Each structure stands twice: as C-alpha cells, then as structure tokens.
C-alpha cells in the first residue's frame, strides 16, 4: 500500500452507515474505494447531486453527468439531482456528515488553508469554503509534509479557507484530533515513532494517553 492508499483507507474507517459525505478532488476521491461492502454511504457532488457512483466505462460517458471537476461520473440508484442553491443548502445547512479535503496548511486552532498561495495562480475556492464551514465533520487527508516541510503548523500563514473548522487530520504518519485544547495525536502508524511525527510537525501536539496503532 502506498502512502495515499494508507491515508484513504484510514479515512474510510471514519465513515458510518447512512452518512452523507463529500470528497474533495485528488486523494480524498480514493476514499470511496475503501467503503466496506454493505455499508450505505452516500456521496454528494457539489455541482448538484447525491448518489455519486463509479467512473463510467469508456464509451459510456454521459455529457450531462459530470462531477465537480468536470469529469464524467455515474450515479447509484436513489440518486437525486438539484440546483446549486440546494446543493450548497445541503452543505451549509449541516446535512453533510463529513467532508474530506486536502490541505496546504492546518494549524493548532483548526484553521485551514487550502485554496491559494499569494503570487501563484489562484484557482478559486470553488465549494471548499462552504464545505469546511457547513459539514458536520471536517477531515483533512494529506501527506504529513510537503517535500519534508511541515504542513501542520502553529499558525497558518497562507490565506485561510475557514477559521477553526477542522476536526481531524489523517496522514500517513497517524491520526490527529483538533480539539478546543489543541491537537491530539490519537493514532500512530507503527512505521513511525512519536518523535518522527514531532519532527514532521511544526504545531505543538499532545500524545493521547491511550495512543493507538493506526488502523490501516
């Protein structure tokens, strides 16, 4: 299993039967591959539907059915289509149980920066700001560092996507909960030591008394 697979597999364990979940582009999309058989998780696509299914087979693409990245997708039975105001009503209104997104930076207060780097081409926030504010649980899934540089910081220095909304950070090194009292490392990938995590993290974090082995 590569790093991304480890992360995606662990994120999948956070989802519960009946959950409505929005997966960001990239690594988060892989989470769908690890939902256990028989568990009913509904995926929301912010461009206007719930019930996102697999990618279509080649030649079976439907021009009227794409995901938020503009790529052809399918829907499962029981899916529902709606306009963008309903889509974000679902998101902002707290009807999405979990959103899984990547990050450029996260900090001790649960601040998230994942939409712009000053001086670089700014792609736009898309639906990320609404998702992070509206979803019941915000799970950041990302590699622990960017080319060795920590991404989990004391204070984000990039423009924020949202303030104080992150609940959980899942990386290849372990699982962290963002609490009112700061970050707590609750699970550790046995391939790493707590010291490794500390070296890869700028933020100060507490190690949970009952630190567990990361479920992979």
């Amino acid at each position: 299993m590569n790093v991304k697979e480890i992360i995606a597999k662990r994120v999948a364990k956070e989802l519960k039967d009946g959950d409505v979940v929005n997966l960001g582009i990239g690594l988060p999309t892989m989470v769908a591959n690890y939902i256990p058989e028989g568990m009913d998780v509904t995926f929301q696509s912010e461009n206007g539907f719930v019930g996102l299914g697999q990618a279509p087979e080649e030649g079976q693409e439907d021009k009227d059915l794409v995901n938020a990245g503009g790529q052809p997708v399918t829907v499962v039975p029981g899916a529902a289509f709606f306009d963008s105001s309903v889509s974000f009503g679902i998101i902002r209104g707290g009807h999405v149980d979990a959103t899984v997104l990547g990050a450029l930076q996260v900090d001790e207060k649960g601040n998230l920066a994942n939409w712009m780097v000053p001086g670089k081409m700014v792609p736009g926030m898309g639906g990320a700001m609404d998702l992070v504010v509206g979803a019941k649980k915000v799970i950041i899934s990302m590699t622990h560092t960017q080319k060795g540089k920590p991404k989990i910081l004391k204070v984000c220095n990039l423009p924020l996507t949202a303030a104080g909304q992150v609940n959980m950070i899942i990386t290849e090194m372990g699982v962290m909960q963002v609490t009112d009292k700061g970050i707590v490392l609750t699970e550790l990938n046995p391939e790493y030591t707590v010291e490794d995590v500390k070296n890869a993290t700028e933020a100060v974090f507490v190690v949970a008394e009952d630190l567990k082995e990361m479920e992979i």
Partner: protein
Amino acid sequence: MRNKVVTIEEAMHHIKDGMTIMIGGFMAAGTPEKFMDALVKKGVKDLTIIGNDGGWPNKGIGKLVCNKQVKKLIASHVGLNPEVGSQMNSGELETELVPQGTLAERIRAGGNGLGGILTPTGVGTIVEEGKEKITVDGKVYILEKPLKADIALVGASIGDKKGNLYYNKATKNFNPLMATAAELVIAGAEKIVEVGEIDSNDVMTPGLFVDYIVEV
C-alpha cells in the same frame, strides 16, 4: 401568445458590448455551448461574466475568455482554464472569486428580490474583507449582496414554446437560479416541444422567467 422561439442570431442580437451576462453550467455541463460559439463569432467585448467557473480553454465560458471578450469574471473556480490565470496576471482580466455556495445564494437573492443573505462561509478569511458582518444569535455571518445581470444565457435539455425548461441530470446547477436574475433570459434548449408536453410537475424553470428560447 407571444412567440418566444427565435433563431440563435435573433437571440444574440440582444447582447451588446459592456453587458453583464450570467452563463449557466458547471465546467461546461449545462452551458449553452452554441451561444458561446455565437458570441465568439459576434465578437462582443468588455463583458462582465457571472458563472460558476472559467470553463476549459476550448469549452464553456473559457471560449469567451480565450477570445479576450471578458473584462471581468465573477466565478468560484477558474483553475481548469490556464488562460484565466495568465490574463489575471497580465491585468487584462479582472476576477472576483466567490465561494460557490455564496455565488448561488447571491444570484438567487438577485432573482428573488432579497437584499442579501447572511452566510457563515468565508468568516475569518479574505472573503469577508470590505463586507458587513452581522451576529445573529451569537454566530457571526457575512452579509452577501445580490447579483443581477442584463442577460442570462441558460442551457436546458428540453424547453417548450412558452419557455418552460427541464434540465437533465447534473446540467441543472446554476441554470435555474440565473434564469431568475437577469433582465433578459435566453434559453438554449436541446429540444423544443409543444406547450403541455413537459409535465407541469417536471418544469424546473417556469416559462415566465424566459424571454427567448432557441433550439440548439
């Protein structure tokens, strides 16, 4: 009954230099593509475009950007059309980036006679800059103001001769919202049917919103 069914040339006749135009669709799904081609051919310029995104270089709103007909773009995401970024950097194109859910609500507010809406999205980020913040029941919100346009160009799957519209699958997105928020609404429908052929329960944009309809 006034005839709303016109040719694409008759419809595009209403679009002038400097106008503010809403364009439906999401990464070109649901965008009335033939209208994009007609506008490129017509060469109207200095347009302010309101849409979800900057399209692709050769598709959707992107066509107008690449042909340098756009002065200002109000959108939530422009990352899939590199031309937007380069025109932003060169100062040729002004962009206003709006969180996607806020964009949907602002357009809806414009079309629905609301003076604005209070959203938690963007609080604590640069999105709140220059905007009024209002605390309701202890929670902070940003007052976001309505968006309106001179023209809305919407893309439908089926339309009837009264302008009732039906959008298939994920093509709904911003289309029904924009159809409420412009002085003049022009729909491009893949198929035009007789009045009564779309079940009254299935109408997604009532014909009263639509001024002209073109089979595209």
